[in-house]
């Protein structure tokens, strides 16, 4: 009887990074020439690993003079993110600018609409408070739902489940951030006759971790087929600065520090990567459980959550649905 190979990140994410980087850069040039007819690439740089690797691949493809970097911080962005973004742009030698989108968000009522929900949930919420939303449920076999976590000025945390209308409003208001950023990216792309690079990794792309017409919108997505573990490896292969290679993934979207795992994925990215790989390769829940150090039942809930997120976010990536042929009067 053949022994089943244990599931491991080393086996799952093995890649020839030289060949893969060469392939992506050639494909980017081909897409620009044959599909998009644009002269270069705009990349919004968040300071995180995905946009950094995407920008570096863009530079490999068309050279630093044909890549325009945008740093688009707002009121709650971490200064470290902007610092890492500048570090990357300097490292790559690309033209870039920092544009604060907070005034635009203020004008749209983004912050006021978020605060309105926070006050409805926690009546004392006001100046000096911070907030974030946290996903719960799916990995415990429950329906996914969000909790609002608010921190008062003394540092105490207050948690409450968001009801339907509150959840919709806080997400809708927060989505202004990604959509305003995309508006700026397309302004510069139009101005320069460039294409816009989208920067999701495979986990984000597969699980719908993006905003429709926000960070989900782009002309080309060079790393959407790579697991996040592979994106980190690609960053090290391309010798990006250590500060970037070692950055912990955050959403950088809410005023309280928030990991991507607590916001959306439920598990740290390395485990979630492995779970998605295992799901896509038909591995049993027992095999996944053994690899993650969890029970087969817990692994089953992880698979169910992957399926639930795919179902719930399927519409995000689709083109508008047309109504088909009209009914003839004959």
């Amino acid at each position: 009887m053949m022994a089943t190979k244990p599931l491991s990140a080393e086996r799952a994410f093995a890649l020839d990074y030289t060949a893969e980087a060469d392939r992506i850069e050639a494909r980017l040039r081909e897409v620009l020439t044959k599909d998009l007819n644009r002269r270069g690439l705009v990349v919004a740089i968040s300071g995180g690993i995905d946009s950094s690797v995407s920008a570096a691949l863009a530079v490999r493809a068309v050279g630093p003079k044909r890549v325009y970097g945008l740093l688009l911080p707002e009121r709650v962005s971490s200064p470290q993110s902007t610092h890492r973004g500048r570090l990357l742009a300097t490292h790559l030698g690309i033209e870039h600018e920092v544009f604060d989108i907070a005034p635009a968000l203020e004008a749209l009522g983004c912050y006021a609409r978020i605060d309105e929900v926070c006050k409805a949930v926690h009546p004392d919420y006001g100046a000096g408070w911070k907030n974030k939303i946290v996903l719960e449920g799916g990995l415990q076999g429950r329906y996914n739902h969000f909790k609002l976590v608010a921190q008062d000025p003394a540092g105490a945390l207050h948690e409450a489940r968001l009801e339907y209308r509150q959840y919709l409003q806080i997400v809708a208001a927060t989505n202004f951030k990604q959509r305003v950023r995309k508006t700026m990216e397309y302004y510069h792309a139009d101005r320069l006759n460039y294409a816009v690079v989208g920067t999701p990794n495979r986990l984000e792309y597969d699980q719908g971790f993006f905003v429709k017409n926000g960070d989900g919108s782009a002309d080309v997505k060079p790393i959407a087929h790579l697991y996040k573990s592979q994106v980190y490896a690609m960053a090290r292969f391309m010798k990006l600065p250590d500060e970037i290679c070692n950055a912990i993934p955050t959403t950088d979207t809410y005023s309280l520090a928030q990991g991507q795992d607590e916001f959306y994925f439920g598990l740290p990215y390395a485990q979630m990567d492995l779970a998605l790989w295992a799901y896509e390769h038909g591995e049993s829940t027992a095999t996944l459980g053994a690899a993650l150090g969890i029970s087969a039942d817990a692994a089953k809930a992880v698979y169910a959550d992957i399926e639930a997120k795919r179902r719930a976010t399927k519409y995000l990536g689709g083109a508008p649905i047309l109504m088909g042929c009209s009914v003839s009067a004959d």
Partner: protein
Amino acid sequence: MSAGEQVRQYILENFLFSTDTSLLGMDDSFLGRGLIDSTGMLEVLLFLEETFGIKVADNEMVPENLDSVNRIAAFVARKKA
């Protein structure tokens, strides 16, 4: 109108845009039919809390309680007992 009928009517009107009861069996799985996702379930919870005056705890938000009209009706009955 029984709780189950109220729930079926609510789901028919809000998720299927219809009043045709033949479109939703009392034991149809919402998940199995792809009818109600996690956001939709928040909407159903709000309806249950406002209509029946119950409070649904986090650990009660499971398909065993909520994944069909009959399951919801039984859950509401247990909560109100």
